[in-house]
């Protein structure tokens, strides 16, 4: 294994985790619709209990995504989290509130009331996907930071990376294209959430309502996503010379990446087809409840192809708009060969982990959630 192979391998692993995270945002998507899908307290409880059995997976994937980034590309961890402080803090605050909302909302002694915690789920459902989407969009559009490792030898100000303005990441939301992608992810999460509820909850009223809301969310998603995607294909991208590490602007970089890495284009197209198949069939066919699977797999594949596009083929995955040469690439921001190699062996556990998650998911979801279960069983 060469160092270069390991750097590409770890970008693949991080991208897979990122793609799975976007799929698992169905939890947030459905939660953002708690009050739209659930007209009665019982219906809202159905929605909450349905996502409540999966929220830990989303949460864990987010944490593991962060951990994997830390282990494999620590300079990104250092620069993005330390620089875009407020962007990440707001995301984290909403996830903190989400974590207790399930457990607390219907328990005796909840002094804040059920609706408070349901609203916290809604806030996390809106803000989480929106800001995570906005953060990912900066991979294509750049962020305002400077990295200078020489600063470590400065006795007074030894910090190597800093944000070049005082907003500490909130400036990302001033870029309309970041917002476009953020809202695209937000609507995508809602689509996935709806498809998940259709599959997981055995209730005709709720399923009918879900199908209606599917349309409301698919249209804005397609418009926003296509706008961002088409614009990205035709904009200048951030490339680097692998021999010197010099970073430069490259016209149609992301389009070229799709052409040169044709297999990513195939993945992307397959993913889009699967997503559309899952959505359209779920909308048109009332007896079809498995739309979350083709759509979910499609989302994983599409996001994976986008993240690989922005990290492979000599592309700077975390570009700096403040100082181009500070941009992060998989070469200049990765861990050492030894660490990547050690972590390579650890990553061989991932298929085993995925296998037991799939088995448990299947075991738990064989019997769909019903109103009877909400009334009689162990529930939130």
């Amino acid at each position, binding site marked *: 294994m060469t160092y270069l192979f390991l750097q590409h391998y770890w970008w693949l692993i991080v991208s897979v985790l990122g793609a799975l995270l976007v799929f698992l945002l169905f939890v947030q998507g459905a939660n953002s619709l708690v009050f739209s899908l659930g007209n009665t307290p019982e219906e809202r409880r159905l929605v909450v209990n349905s996502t409540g059995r999966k929220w*830990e997976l989303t949460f864990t994937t987010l*944490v593991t995504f962060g951990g994997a980034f830390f*282990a494999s590309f620590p300079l990104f961890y250092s620069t993005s989290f330390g620089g875009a402080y407020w962007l990440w803090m707001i995301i984290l605050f909403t996830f903190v509130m989400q974590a207790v909302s399930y457990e607390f909302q219907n328990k005796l002694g*909840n002094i804040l009331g059920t609706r408070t915690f349901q609203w916290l789920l809604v806030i996390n459902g809106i803000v989480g996907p929106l800001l995570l989407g906005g953060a990912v969009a900066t991979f294509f559009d750049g962020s305002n930071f400077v990295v200078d490792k020489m600063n*470590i030898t400065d006795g007074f100000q030894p910090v190597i990376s800093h944000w070049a303005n005082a907003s500490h990441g909130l400036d990302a939301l001033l870029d309309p294209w970041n917002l476009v992608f953020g809202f695209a992810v937000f609507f995508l999460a809602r689509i996935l959430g709806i498809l998940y509820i259709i599959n997981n909850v055995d209730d005709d009223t709720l399923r009918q309502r879900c199908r209606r809301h599917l349309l409301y969310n698919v249209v804005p998603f397609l418009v926003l996503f296509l706008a961002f995607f088409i614009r990205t294909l035709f904009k200048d991208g951030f490339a680097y010379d692998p021999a010197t590490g010099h970073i430069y602007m490259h016209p149609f970089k992301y389009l070229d990446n799709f052409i040169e890495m044709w297999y990513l284009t195939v993945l992307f197209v397959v993913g889009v087809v699967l997503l559309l198949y899952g959505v359209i069939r779920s909308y048109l066919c009332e007896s079809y409840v498995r739309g979350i699977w083709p759509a979910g797999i499609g989302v994983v594949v599409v996001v994976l192809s986008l993240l690989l596009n922005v990290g492979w083929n000599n592309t700077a995955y975390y570009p700096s708009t403040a100082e181009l040469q500070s941009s992060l690439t998989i070469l200049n921001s990765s861990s050492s060969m030894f660490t990547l190699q050690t972590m390579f062996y650890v990553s061989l556990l991932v298929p085993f982990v995925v296998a037991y998650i799939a088995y*448990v998911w299947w*075991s738990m979801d064989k019997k769909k959630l019903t109103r009877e279960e909400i009334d009689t069983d162990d529930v939130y």
Partner: protein
Amino acid sequence: MSNLLLDITTATIDWSRAQFALTAIYHWLFVPLTLGLAVIMGIVETCYYRTKKRFWKDAAKFWQTLFGINFAMGVATGIILEFEFGTNWSNYSWFVGDIFGAPLAIEGIVAFFMESTFVAVMFFGWKKVSPGFHLASTWLTGLGATISAWWILVANAWMQYPIGQTFNPDTMRFEMTSFVDVALSPFAVSKFTHTVTSAWIIGALFTVGVSCWYLLKNREHKLAVESIKIASIVGLVASLLTALTGDESAYTVAKTQPMKLAAMEALYNGGHDQSLTAVAWVSPFGQADYANEQEPSFKVGVPYALSFLATRDFHGYVPGVNDIIKGYTDHSGQKQPSLKEKIARGQTAIKALQQYRGGDKSPKVRQAVADNIQYFGYGYVKNADQVVPNIPINFWAFRVMVGLGVLFILFFLVVGHVSWRRNIADPKWRWLFITAIVLVPLGYICSESGWIVAELGRQPWTIQDMLPTWAAVSDIGSSSVILTFFIFLALFTTMLVVEINILFKQIRKGMEAPQA
């Protein structure tokens, strides 16, 4: 060029430390109960699996309900800690991320997924999976939490005792050279065993405390008696193991962090034949005058015990704060440089790095980096006060921890005897019931005291001798950190109040009534 734009102030450093301390202390309110109660409810459910008696199932579900309420808070407060390394300690993240990131990633892949997958089966799977699968899920939830503790403590141990790394001047960071050294460091082993067994004590104290409350109220007799029987054994075994591992932990500290041990003991001037301080007057108001005082007033000690604890020799040499500052020869005969020498060598390392980054990559410069890098962090130090941790806090926290630890051993001996040999449901044990309830919050105080010793004792280092806090921090304005500090304080405190109220209500409701 870019460092002209930086604005690191002492306020940023102090508030970043305060925020990390706040979130870590909150997180550690919930983790020990998760680890401890996991063992108790695993045993209770195993009893159900073996006997198929309805009582054991109801008992398991009762403890699992309390576990769930606490678990949610542990998860909520835990996510922040991982990301704070990036948000508030960005320099640290780069400087040692090559080593430190790996345990965190492994924790996520190996432990968190296990925990989060099987906890859902434990809560909601009673009618969906077989009893065997359910029992396995309950144990795997606890195992996942314990494996998680292992990896985060490996990471923490590396900060206290960095091992298995080398400095790379081309990348300007430390890089891992031996994963085995990092993952199986003696510091990690003693830290893990001490921490996890202490968490079992909390689980046992909580179980006995809740059960005794029922006995005091003359209700839930069977649940209370059977739970006390199980918890007393878990608690006794755990408290004895904690004492044993605590001794090993202190021995490791003595070898690798002598300043921390000196602060724990308020030992200003060391020597041979040192006694272990039982009590002494160390004013909690402000830093001790270590440079001028000979020793704390009213000191009563156990003769030779500190020498034995630190060196396994009753006559062994233990350095005090001033010895460490002036330089000394340790118990193994090795000469330890003075602070002045360490600062000079740290500055040499920094200067050599400047030359190296400036283009002079000659063997001489490389050698200067290699020879002095172990004292790199001292290059940022200006005076002795900066490297002496807060002595009063360490001194008193250590005594609170050890004192309460001894009390718990006695308590579990008594409660074990009464529950297994006598009728503990008899109202004549009222004093024992009240004692058990009082000991629950004391268990938390003991546990938090341990962390205070571990973390404040290594100040000012984020990584021992390599990186002081002021060189590890992110470039964020102090106002931002102050704001997030108070948001966390408000958020976590509100959540804690709600959680405690829910816990009390669930306990009052008891086992017989259907769960909400």
